[in-house]
């Protein structure tokens, strides 16, 4: 279905433009401004050019946080995407059981981020937590507040707990849209369970899975509240991801210049990767429209 060209459609988009410009372009320009200037307190600013950018790129702080962030996002994508697909394939197809599954699975998604952190805090703590107490009673030394490895395991388990349902719900929506004729044809061909998955279900889920990867990548890359509440970025700096570091710099130390430069580079990286995903998604949309 070709869309018609109509320039007056701009009037329909105008309210969104005005609103988003107010809440995005103006603050963004402030950030750009700060990133090229220095201030000695008060309102006196002077031009420093690219100094903040150079300083940040030379310092280890940004690179360390970036490395931790990449590692974190890769791990949670590697766990959540396959696990989400597996859960979606295992879900009941209809009836009350399907409704119960949907509601229970969506529950973690609706819990405020800091409450997610709190839940895992009271669940994991060695003194009062169900998980922490059980592990230490079993003789496994576990303390996410002091051991960096334990902290990582807990933060990852928390993210898997929080967001795998999103992937599962998306994959489930994709599975539900496959016409039954496909399965009947596969049955006539005596296709194995694996080939049904590989040649029917996976290709039909491609579109929603890309949305899932895009959303999970973006959101995990800007994760802030959950690890902040759980570990506060520690022990040491071991779970200080990019957003935690940035907030520390901007609101904690009030280093406007470096924080602004940090913000812009951070945003650009997300933008770049997301653009790749988005382009892929649009191409798939077009392919499916043709098919």
């Amino acid at each position: 279905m070709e869309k018609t060209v109509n320039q007056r459609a701009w009037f329909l988009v105008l309210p969104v433009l005005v609103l988003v410009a107010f809440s995005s372009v103006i603050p963004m320009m402030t950030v750009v401004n700060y990133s090229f200037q220095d201030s000695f307190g008060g309102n006196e600013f002077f031009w420093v050019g690219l100094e903040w950018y150079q300083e940040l790129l030379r310092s280890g702080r940004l690179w360390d946080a970036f490395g931790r962030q990449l590692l974190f996002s890769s791990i949670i994508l590697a766990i959540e995407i396959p696990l989400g697909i597996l859960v979606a394939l295992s879900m009941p197809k209809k009836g009350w059981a399907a409704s119960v599954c949907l509601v229970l699975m969506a529950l973690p998604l609706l819990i405020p981020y800091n409450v997610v952190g709190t839940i895992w805090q009271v669940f994991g703590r060695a003194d009062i937590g169900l998980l922490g107490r059980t592990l230490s009673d079993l003789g496994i030394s576990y303390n996410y507040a002091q051991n960096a490895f334990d902290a990582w395991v807990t933060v990852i388990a928390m993210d898997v707990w929080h967001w795998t349902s999103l992937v599962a719900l998306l994959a489930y929506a994709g599975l539900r849209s496959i016409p039954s004729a496909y399965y009947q044809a596969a049955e006539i061909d005596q296709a194995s369970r694996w080939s049904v998955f590989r040649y029917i279900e996976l290709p039909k889920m491609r579109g929603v899975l890309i949305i899932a990867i895009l959303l999970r990548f973006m959101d995990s890359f800007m994760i802030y509240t959950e690890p902040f509440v759980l570990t506060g970025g520690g022990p040491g700096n071991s779970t200080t991801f990019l957003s935690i570091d940035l907030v520390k710099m901007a609101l904690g130390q009030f280093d406007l210049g470096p924080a602004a430069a940090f913000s812009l580079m951070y945003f650009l990286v997300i933008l770049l990767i997301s653009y790749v995903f988005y382009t892929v998604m649009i191409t798939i949309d077009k392919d499916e429209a043709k098919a």
Partner: protein
Amino acid sequence: MSAEPRINNRKFRIRPANVVIAGYLLFLLVPIYWLVIMSFKTNSEILSSFTLFPDNFTLENYQTILTDPSWYMGYVNSFIYVSLNTVISLLVALPAAYAFSRYRFFGDNHLFFWLLTNRMAPPAVFALPFFQLYSSVSLFDTHIAVALAHCLFNVPLAVWILEGFMRGIPREIDETAFIDGYGFTRFFTRIFVPMIGPGIGVTAFFCFMFSWVELLLSRTLTSVDAKPITAIMTRTVSASGLDWGVLAAAGVLTIIPGAIVIYFVRNYIAKGFALGRV
């Protein structure tokens, strides 16, 4: 969602499936169970003994929250800005989504991607500039400031989801209505909006959800009068002498609205998460 796919259960339903689902749901529910149980315990029981059920079942923690304005006003504040945000997002996103789903116009694809970039922007980047912007227009610590700030990610999302639902409606319907003499406004409000009712419901659900769960911006933009419950909770966490029971009770009370809302949209939730694109 299309018609029920009739899957031959005998052949394709694998038995381990139920095990996977049961295990996954258990994994989801155990931490929540612990929080709920903790909210019914006294502080001394939480700290001194390790019990799977409360020995002394108490409602004191809930009583503390529901009788102290500095606690329960947090819920009221959250509800006010979440509702404001949902209404604003839907009002501006509806016409825009219609334009994107029906017409080509100068710069449409770029505009759409630019909108999405705002959904991708880390709130941490915007915390400081928002604080300065809303302070300078004297909106700091008001509900409308938080509602507007959350539009940053909710409006693009609303446009995205609504566009997905709208493209599923054949354009012949628009054309027929225009031939029948409907003006655009009347067609849009009387015919089109009712037709995408489920899409609007799902979009409202997502705006509610993302505004409800967000902490960083809402905490940065408020101090007293509009402070949301989530920020009040973090303040309690950082204070000395943690009151775990009250904290758990406050957490449980933030889960309930979400659970109610999910129940109402349960049949559309999967399609909604797929942004209306299946």
